[in-house]
């Protein structure tokens, strides 16, 4: 009985690979379970919206996006990537929220001469030493966003800051990024256990005691909300100004508003994109996304939307011939699509060269918490690892 089941399962699994080849397929790996699924769902919504805008076609051919869940774990992400590459023989695989999932999945894609498009993660290795012609990014390199924040802190004359981030690679990158640019004094720095630690009482007490003028934090996902809450409860609003990267976004703001965390209002953040950016593609994206889901899209969603539009432009260039990897790569590099962030071009390491904006958390016309662009911090910024890349 069990044996028959196993044989049957294996046989059916083998069979399913042989059939079906009519739709053009693109893979998208993101996180659809665990609390981080909130980011993955936002990306999935944006991908679905992009496909809707494109009439269910990529490059004019009927197409389908195959979603896979990485379960927030690098080896699951790698297994799913293997499956898309080897079992489904898909040429372009996009997505990848997390640096570690991206790094685990990169080798099988490059070895099979397929194409990887990051819609979020931007670890320094892939931008520098291990850059690859089969890799493209519609997001940013980790260092860029905190560097923009450091630059803004210099411009606005902040003298001293306290830094808090989770103790994992991206967290350390963010802390290093701001320190690279910031000219004032860093009074102290705490790297907290990730992802387990959500109670920051000990660190906030230290930050308060340090006497720093402002606090810089990086807490993505669920930790962001927890941090804001405790920042407010510790009475730091007004005492220490809050500057964040990747901690406040379209996903967390409605929840923060429901939880009455008004400590976040007026706090500053930096990003390469904002829902209020003034261009046609962005207006359409934000309006349709809001109409469909009732909330502002997050920057994760914007990047995912861009990745599909980018793929569309490349598939059109090779006229749907997904076996033409060189043609696809050349077309991707051109980046001939209307990005929601306005101008978009790739650098030598296939990371975008783009503007970075200072954003502020405000209440919008409907009374919803949102963000607006305050100023442009960097124009056409190239990431600091591009010079290590030999492409």
């Amino acid at each position, binding site marked *: 009985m069990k044996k028959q089941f196993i044989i049957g399962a294996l046989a059916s699994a083998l069979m399913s690979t042989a059939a079906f080849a009519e739709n053009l397929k693109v893979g998208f790996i993101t996180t659809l379970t665990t609390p981080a699924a909130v980011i993955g769902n936002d990306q999935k919504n944006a991908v679905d919206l992009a496909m809707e805008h494109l009439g269910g076609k990529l490059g004019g051919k009927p197409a389908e996006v195959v979603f896979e*869940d990485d379960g927030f774990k*690098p*080896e699951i992400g790698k297994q799913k990537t293997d499956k898309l590459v080897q079992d489904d023989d898909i040429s372009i695989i996009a997505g990848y929220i997390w640096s570690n999932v991206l790094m685990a999945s990169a080798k099988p894609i490059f070895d099979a001469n397929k194409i990887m498009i990051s819609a979020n993660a931007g670890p320094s290795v892939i931008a520098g030493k291990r850059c690859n012609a089969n890799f493209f990014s519609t997001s940013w390199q980790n260092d860029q966003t905190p560097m923009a924040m450091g630059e803004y802190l210099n411009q606005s004359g902040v003298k001293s800051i306290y830094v808090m981030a989770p103790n994992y*690679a991206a967290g350390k990158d963010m802390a290093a990024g701001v320190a690279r640019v910031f000219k004032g004094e860093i009074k102290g720095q705490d790297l907290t256990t990730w992802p387990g630690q959500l109670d920051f009482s000990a660190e906030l007490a230290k930050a308060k005691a340090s006497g720093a003028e402002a606090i810089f934090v990086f807490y993505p996902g669920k930790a962001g909300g927890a941090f804001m809450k405790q920042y407010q409860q510790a009475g730091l609003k007004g005492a220490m100004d809050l500057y964040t990267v990747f901690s406040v976004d379209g996903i967390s703001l409605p929840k923060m508003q429901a939880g009455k965390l008004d400590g976040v209002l007026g706090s500053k953040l930096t990003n390469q994109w904002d829902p209020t950016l003034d261009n046609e593609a962005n207006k359409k994206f934000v309006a349709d996304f809001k109409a469909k889901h009732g909330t502002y899209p997050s920057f994760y969603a914007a990047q995912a939307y861009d990745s599909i539009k980018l793929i569309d432009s490349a598939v059109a260039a090779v006229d749907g011939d997904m076996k033409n990897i060189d043609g696809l790569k050349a077309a991707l590099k051109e980046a001939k699509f209307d990005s929601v962030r306005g101008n978009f071009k790739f650098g030598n390491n296939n990371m975008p060269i783009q503007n970075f904006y200072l954003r502020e958390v405000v209440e919008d016309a409907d009374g919803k918490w949102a963000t607006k662009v305050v100023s442009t911090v960097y124009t056409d910024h190239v990431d600091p690892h591009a010079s290590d890349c030999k492409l």
Partner: protein
Amino acid sequence: MSAQKKAANLDEYLKAPSLFGFGIGRIMTIVLMVLLFILPLIAWYMGNKFYLDFSSRIVCLAIAAVSLNLILGFGGMVSFGHAAFVGIGAYAVGIPSHHGYESAWLHFPLAMIAAAFFALVTGAISLRTKGVYFIMITMAFAQMAYYFFLSLEEYGGDDGMTLWSRSDFGFLNITDKLTFFLLSYALLALCIYLVFRIVNSRFGMVVRGCNSNEARMKSLGYNTYAYRLTAYVISGAMCGLAGALMANLQDFITADTMTWTRSGELMFMVILGGAGSVFGPIFGTGVFLLFEEILSAYTIYWHLPFGVLLILSVLFIKGGVNGLIQRAWKT
């Protein structure tokens, strides 16, 4: 009492498990081992490399499960920290590679020695405790190892490290998926044979005797602590081997493989197959991974039916898949 007499006493006390089991168990195990060998080869022949890799994963994890079974199934030591050995084995491949030493003849022995050493140190402390204290202290040591490797920024830390080229065996090129599968399969067969020999040896009898009645073994004059510790170290070394293989299969090494949920999964593989039977863990690993693969293909909420399956198997399938088949055959 002479050593021979002691052994003779034990022989009556413990009936030796046979390599292939009895009746239907024998047929089933042979059939499954053959299937595990043939099906991937058919898939490979048909041009689908994914199922070859998938089978390699079953084989590698089966080695870990077999090693856990040695102490859990036969020795009654419920280790809730076996994932640590897998992780240590994996880093024994990754760390030398990072520094340019890519020989498999360095990686694999190092993996086993490092894991054995960790087993020796932690086992020496853990085995002083009993029951649930043992479950929890092994878990605590695994968590320590997890946080330790997490903090090694040089070796990727939280991001993990990509193994840009696999261990170099010289004459064997394990970058080739088929060669890798054949090598792991051979090592699995070797491990099974070793475990079989161990549990049927005088040493194995003592360890199993400790499981059934430690006081009795002590009264027979055995230093039960030393016997159990030796078994624990052997199991750790074997699990380190599984880790070295896993690292090469995944081309990626992460501390995540050492978290307590991973140890729980390994335990489940052993229990599902039937603890204390030489082949049980292979059943268990195969069924576990197949369920995971099939369920997760249908729904992202596959943890729900998977959890139900777990509870049902604990409530209703005593002795795992192996026991189930044995009973079905008898009735």
